């Protein structure tokens, strides 16, 4: 697997396709922390939403960098399952690098209005990595499912992102969709804990919700 990840990473970097999503993310973070005295948790919530979109972009890029013959050879060389795992791992590693930048950049600049405690750091790492996994899943789903025609893959990813970000508004207007929309990543539900920028909101409900979410996200990797 190590060899395949190295292969993927070199191929992706040399394709220069990483530049648009990575540059978008870095610029966004720089702009977000242009002003000092900002709130901790809600700022990290915003950067994790951007990471969600950018990771979807990166995952879709990674699934489309090979032409048919190269993909066929890789399927035989590493197997279809390892091919998929390799793509997920490289997406996650890139998202991890972006996460570290988005967490430590405001700390280095001293952008926050209060002192950052370890619980803030823990929660920010959690939400960034969780949203990175959401992004990888949305990107993979749009790229590899056979029932979405190739020319609609980007459109479907944008649609899923739009639905997940406007979940509350959709449910308010069309309440009958409430259960159907549960199949999408619960982005808004997680963000709602962070928006008030108050550690008191992270009670029992958050931890039960997070544990269930983490299990459902990680179960494909564990089995």
């Amino acid at each position: 697997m190590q060899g395949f990840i190295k292969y993927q990473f070199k191929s992706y970097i040399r394709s220069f396709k990483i530049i648009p999503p990575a540059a978008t993310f870095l610029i966004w973070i720089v702009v977000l922390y242009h002003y000092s005295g900002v709130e901790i948790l809600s700022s990290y919530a915003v950067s994790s939403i951007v990471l969600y979109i950018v990771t979807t972009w990166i995952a879709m890029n990674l699934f489309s960098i090979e032409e048919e013959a190269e993909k066929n050879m890789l399927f035989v060389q590493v197997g279809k399952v390892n091919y998929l795992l390799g793509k997920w791992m490289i997406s996650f590693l890139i998202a991890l690098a972006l996460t570290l930048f988005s967490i430590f950049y405001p700390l280095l600049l001293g952008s926050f209005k209060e002192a950052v405690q370890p619980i803030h750091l823990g929660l920010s790492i959690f939400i960034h990595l969780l949203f990175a996994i959401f992004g990888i899943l949305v990107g993979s789903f749009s790229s590899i499912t056979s029932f979405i025609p190739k020319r609609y893959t980007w459109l479907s990813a944008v649609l899923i992102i739009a639905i997940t970000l406007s979940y509350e508004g959709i449910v308010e207007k069309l309440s009958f969709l409430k259960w159907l929309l549960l199949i999408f990543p619960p982005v808004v539900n997680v963000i709602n804990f962070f928006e008030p920028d108050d550690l008191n909101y992270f009670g029992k409900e958050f931890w039960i919700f997070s544990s269930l979410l983490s299990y459902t996200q990680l179960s494909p990797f564990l089995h």
Partner: protein
Amino acid sequence: MGKVILKALDLKKEIDGKEILQHVSFQIEEHASIAIRGSNGSGKSTLLKLLAGIYDPTSGKLVRNAKRIGYVPEHFPENLRFKLKEYLTLVATFQGMTKKDIEAELSEYIGLFEIESFTNTPLKKCSKGTKQKVGILQALLIKPDILLLDEPLTGLDTSSQQNLMAMLEKLKTKMTIIFTTHEDLLVENIADQIFYVKDGRVLVQTENKSSQRVIKVRFPNKNVLLGLEFNELHMEEDIAIITISRDKSDDLLRKLLNNNCSVLDVRERI
């Protein structure tokens, strides 16, 4: 009877709702050499991709008793972002080969394929023939039990074609070789069996050796051909193409040479 390395049971493959292959059943023994033949679009490459595991069958069962499979596509990818040796080294690491083993294997194969001067050349800048050689090399490097080749002679010059055929002949004893091809020469030299793909079905022919030979000669005058025994004769100016049964071909060749004819080509009729 040898160990069965591949077994297909009533395979069916549909792509975009179109039935490409249906009711395909066969078994392939270890160290067999199989040529898959058929007209363009008949499903040869689809069958090869099913055997490679690139495609999953729509229905039916395919059993592979092989640890490693090497696959050579018809056209090597155009946009690989690696240098030749860097690419092969990376591919070898997929199988967990040590650096020392990779170096030893690579230097042997690179020498054999005569691509020493391109080892540090980006693959994008390599010629079609060199890329095709790299395609074959990446499959051989992993020491496969089954080697699958899609039109392996495509893009190779005559000398490389001869080298590849010689190599495949050597490899025949070490692994199972399955290839699609339109080239009679490759079938004649390498294949023990031929699978004909037609109308989505696969017909297995176990005896490959043809019963007829086609002889191309230049003759001094038409009279020298009179009285000779053959099955078919086509003439064009001073060139004759004669089809004759295999057992009588040597005798005919002798007579043609005695009658001052120049033998231009002798090949098996497939």
